[in-house]
């Protein structure tokens, strides 16, 4: 009999253990539940970072294991955010409207409530009609289903068209960039029904929890994000541990040869593409309530390119590499761009890190590619092996 994948991959249990320690530790130090040493806004940064680790995990599955360099997975992440954001915004606006009409001499009709919600949400784009795509926005379970369904369906249709025509390599990467760009441009329009460049905001306010403080809500989301990442990691490790993992790595290395073994390469790519799109969407649905706002700029093509950079820096094809890359780069990035890093005055020129951080990142990327092609995760492997010896 085959041994469990947990025994064959000790890194899984180590990762889950570290993640649990991290989450409990952060909670103890937080303002919401503990000592107050970590600010609520930093708890949110940590929670968001866990979500970015989850999408990096998806990127590692699709690119590191299956060899599909998708530069469009942030489209799925963003769509997941929009789907949950619609419910957050609608349900909360509905509460506000009902509360404000409560003192009216006549009880408001449901039509009046709808009109008021419509003008509250869509006033910024010059409308008050509630667009058709908001039909189910009042329902949490339906929007939650759409978090999975809409990005999954987009991935299915896009993947089916692209893989069936055997688009591979750089052409596929360009096509995925075009997909995310097209989606961003569409959402930028005021009549897209999703408030154009304003996006959806106030997402940090959870309907039905208006008297719960952000200190507490931030901890809820930290735990939800950690849970999603932990489950995602278990799922990914299980998926790649068996014959399916063998087949997709074989597709990455020589897809023609895999066809002659009788495997339908296109079907496998499609399965991996759709699964990872759904993981990305779940990550997005947890990220944006912590960010508070989502707008179309979030799914600009550059976002998905960063995602590939994180995974490359962390090291492809080993799951924890993607986590290390995403956590390391995104945390450093938010530090450099927060303005907390002192500028470097050179007399004739002042290095402002907010601007120069990207140069530093690019330089780091080149260094990793040249001197540690297996990424930070590869260095980690070498350390562990040395201890074994």
């Amino acid at each position, binding site marked *: *009999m085959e041994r469990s994948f947990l025994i064959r991959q000790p890194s899984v249990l180590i990762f889950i253990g570290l993640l649990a320690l991290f989450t409990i530790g952060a909670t103890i130090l937080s303002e919401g539940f503990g000592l107050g040493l970590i600010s609520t806004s930093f708890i949110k940064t940590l929670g968001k970072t866990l979500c970015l680790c989850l999408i990096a995990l998806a990127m590692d599955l699709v690119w590191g294991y299956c060899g599909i360099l998708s530069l469009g997975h942030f489209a799925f992440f963003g769509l997941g955010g929009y789907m949950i954001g619609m419910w957050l915004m609608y349900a909360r606006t509905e509460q506000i409207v009902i509360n404000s009409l409560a003192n009216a001499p006549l009880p408001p009709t449901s039509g009046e409530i709808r009109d008021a919600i419509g003008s509250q949400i869509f006033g910024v784009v010059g409308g008050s009609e509630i667009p058709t795509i908001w039909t189910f926005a009042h329902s949490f379970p339906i929007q939650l289903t759409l978090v999975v369904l809409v990005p999954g369906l987009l991935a299915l249709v896009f993947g089916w068209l692209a893989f069936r025509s055997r688009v591979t390599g750089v052409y596929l990467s360009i096509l995925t960039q075009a997909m995310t760009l097209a989606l961003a441009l569409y959402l930028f329009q005021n009549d897209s029904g999703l408030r154009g460049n304003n996006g959806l905001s106030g997402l940090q306010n959870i309907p039905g929890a208006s008297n719960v403080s952000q200190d507490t809500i931030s901890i809820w989301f930290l735990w939800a994000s950690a849970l999603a990442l932990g489950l995602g990691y278990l799922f990914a490790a299980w998926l790649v541990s068996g014959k*399916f993992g*063998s087949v997709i790595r074989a597709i990455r290395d*020589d897809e023609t*040869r895999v066809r*002659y073994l009788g495997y339908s390469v296109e079907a496998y790519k499609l399965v991996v593409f759709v699964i990872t799109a759904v993981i990305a969407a779940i990550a997005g649905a947890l990220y944006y309530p912590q960010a508070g706002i989502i707008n179309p700029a979030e799914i600009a093509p550059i976002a998905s390119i960063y995602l590939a950079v994180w995974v490359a820096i962390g090291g492809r094809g080993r799951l924890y590499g993607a986590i290390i890359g995403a956590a390391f780069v995104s945390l450093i990035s938010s530090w450099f761009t927060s303005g907390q890093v002192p500028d470097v005055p050179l007399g004739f020129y002042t290095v402002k890190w907010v601007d120069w951080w990207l140069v530093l990142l690019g330089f780091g990327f080149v260094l990793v590619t040249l001197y540690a092609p297996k990424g930070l995760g590869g260095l980690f492997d070498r350390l562990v092996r040395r201890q074994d010896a």
Partner: protein
Amino acid sequence: MSKNPTLLEVSGVSVTFDGFRAINNLSFQIGSAELRAVIGPNGAGKTTMMDIITGKTRPDTGKVTYGRPGKNLLKMNESAIARVGIGRKFQRPSVFESQTVFDNLIMALKKSRSPLDVVFYRRDDSDVSKVEKLAAEIGLADQLQRLSGELSHGQKQWLEIGMLLAQDPQLLLVDEPAAGMTPEEREKTTDILRKAAETRAVVVVEHDMEFVRRLDCRVTVLHEGAVLAEGSIDHVTQDQAVIDVYLGR
């Protein structure tokens, strides 16, 4: 012939690459349990012929049918053709170098190829013993846990033949299996192929006359994309046309 019904029939096939006719009205048949050698000078169209049978190249004209009742292979894609029972070994050894010998063989083992079945596949003892038996046949029994990228050239060739056998195909197409092998390795390769042909059809493309002689089977000589001669090795080596275009040089 009645004891050995036709398994593969290629008739009137032509392929043109940018105006160059690589296969020219080619016709031949392979029986259900036979070993066949295909020889011919470089560029004769041997590899292209395999590309057509396995669905990699679509011919301009002609028919390729397989099995009984005859399935039209020209309407199927590569993976579907592999699933009906045609296995192929490429000219350069192509095994999955970043995976172990064991994993390479498990992947090739005849099982459902659908993604859902593969996701939930967990190997059982009977699969493991099948793989171990195969590994013994190809002389890699003690190499199962090695990465296949670490194997010698000859061992990679055998692993690939082993993967073909694991697929349990009815028709095996083998492109230049002995290229780059030592004489002892060649001898072993001949044994493996002869044994495989006891229960299925095996078509071996080869350059080397000595190797073909040792296979001791019917020989088809290709030249400029068409059959030049067919028969026993002694028959074709005495054929004047064959001597002129191939052996005489």
